């Protein structure tokens, strides 16, 4: 597992990699273990020095930190800051880390005390408004998706190791869905955010006849107004669109802004 690697004859360093999780289902990390067919090759590419879910050994310095989950408690800000300090490259892994993910649905309720009471009654529990990583630290790279697509992560990690620029598709899921020769879900009576959601998942849900819920956030120049019109033509309630737009937090800048204003699409929140 430790033979020297090279790419086009140039020797490559095996970067030290750490995996970390804040508030999440830890599914994105597990997606990496779900790489049975290529797992051992993947492990050859990097040196995993921190992966609490999979190994007992731990280290405090690493080249790349993959952070899954969103920030929902104060102590997570400190952990995240520490990880940022130790890492050369910090990667937001999955939609919770990139946008807040399903966790940020909690933010629909202004009254955090009601939220706590609804679940825990009078028992005191600490929580705060849900934030993506970029609200607290600089994020060098975002890997979108709930869950992340393992093939995409492998490609991105390979790009990082060989020093290539990592690029995300700018076009929407709709393009990939068409390329997969699927029947349009609108014609099957199924609402779908495919026309506005960033591609890269190879139309994972829509190829399984499940409408897109927008887990990867907006494509460049996503046209929400047009989507609303299409959905209206097909007779879908506005509520269905809003349910999906708010599900993972990727479209927060759209749903918060007035739908009349034609704002340029910011892919994610500003770095602080």
């Amino acid at each position: 597992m430790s033979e020297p690697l090279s790419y086009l004859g140039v020797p490559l360093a095996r970067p030290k990699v750490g995996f970390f999780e804040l508030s999440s289902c830890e599914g994105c990390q597990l997606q990496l273990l779900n790489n049975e067919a290529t797992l051992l090759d993947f492990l050859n590419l990097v040196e995993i020095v921190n992966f609490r879910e999979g190994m007992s050994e731990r280290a405090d310095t690493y080249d790349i930190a993959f952070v899954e989950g969103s920030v929902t408690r104060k102590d997570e800000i400190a952990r995240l800051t520490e990880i940022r300090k130790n890492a050369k490259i910090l990667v937001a892994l999955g939609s919770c880390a990139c946008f807040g993910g399903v966790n940020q649905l909690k933010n629909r309720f202004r009254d955090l005390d009601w939220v706590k009471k609804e679940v825990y009654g009078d028992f005191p529990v600490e929580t705060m408004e849900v934030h993506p990583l970029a609200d607290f630290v600089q994020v060098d790279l975002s890997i979108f998706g709930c869950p992340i697509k393992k093939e995409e992560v492998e490609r991105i990690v390979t790009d990082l190791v060989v020093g290539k620029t990592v690029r995300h598709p700018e076009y929407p899921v709709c393009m990939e869905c068409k390329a997969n020769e699927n029947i349009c879900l609108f014609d099957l009576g199924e609402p779908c955010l495919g026309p506005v959601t960033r591609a890269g998942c190879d139309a994972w849900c829509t190829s399984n006849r499940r409408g897109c819920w927008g887990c990867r956030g907006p494509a460049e120049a996503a046209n929400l107004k047009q989507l609303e019109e299409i959905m209206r033509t097909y007779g879908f309630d506005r509520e269905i669109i809003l349910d999906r737009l708010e599900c993972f937090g990727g479209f927060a800048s759209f749903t918060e802004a007035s739908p009349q204003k034609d704002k340029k699409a910011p892919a994610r929140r500003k770095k602080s």
Partner: protein
Amino acid sequence: MKISCEVNVHHLTRVEGHGNITISIKNGVVKKAQWEVVETPRFFEAMLVGKHWENAPYICGRICGICSIGHTLASIRAVENAFGITPSPQTASLRLLLKHMETLQSHILHLYFLAAPDFLGAGSVLPLAKSHPEVVQRALRLKLLANDACDIIGGRRLHPTRTVVGGFTMLPEKGQLEKIRQRLMASVPDLLASAELFKTFTIPDFSRETEFVSLKGDTSYPFIGGGLVSTDGVVKKENQYRAMTNEYCTKGFTSKLSKLSRRSFAVGALARLNNNFTLLHPTAREISKFLGLVPVNHNPYMCNVAQLVECVHVVLDSVRLIDTMLGSPWQEPRQPVQAKKGEGVGAVEVPRGILYHYYKFDKEGKVTKADCVIPTSQNHANILHDIEALASQYARTGKQDREIELLAEMLVRAYDPCISCSVH
């Protein structure tokens, strides 16, 4: 020999989520033995309030990254029970097959990647790839089979895409099922080799009598819906789950805890097996006996063995299910759904034990109340009392700090806890 020892495990490794173990023994007397759950809560039950029913399985499946299929199925069952929908026999069979493949995937992940390193003296599965390549390859083969089957049936191994209220968005091709059947048959030698491997492991000699709670099967080993039972003789209906779980909050846990007839009870593979041993596939039962597991077994470390026995059961039962499906033409994948005011419970045996989802809907089909009771949250109190008993047992026998620490870690791992799930 009287001993003193300090064990402080902060964020235990090789488990899902964040938990701490603290043991303090002074001159042979246990001063402190604690299992703490420090995971951040995500408030799924609050998130759902006001949401249209269609959101429930989609969002709640995301409670867990390992058993998302189980959560999705429990959620779907709760919605269907609330709306008075009975799944078609085809849907029921496909769901069970999907459930079986998740059980196999999750158990293999736990047995080989999380538990086995302790028994083979390694910190993780990574060095085992070098020292025991055939073991790691076998684990990967079994896991790949299970995950491929989940992809084919559920659309995706994690956070499934095809599973919806009323059935499936689309069905697998029969040719794909035939291939899965062949691979299932071919996996039997791998499972037997797994049994041989686990036979060589020294299971720690520790027992503490407790109550075991699970679904009760009538004619088959239970996974989806049905009556609830405990080894102390409690019998309840599915919709009486609250009387079976009695959730409460306590200091040191961001997860809720449960109790029934005693101060704690256990759920999971060992509980299922203890309550339903005679319903296991005969081959699985033979392997259980071969590995020294006969009900009622009170050694929590035997949960590992129970999971392995269940792997054999689900593989052989999946072959049966596929044979039935291949023997008749596909029917409609999905039935129409009519929302109505009401409430429903879905109880499903997920890899770590019995899981309950409950929803209440208004007349528009919007969630007014949600409740999810997670297997690991039901196990936390039992883990805590096991650690106390373990500490006092070994305080008397004079083990080293590191030995006690490892035994405590292995104990928690044996429950295969899904901590972020338990807090949700």
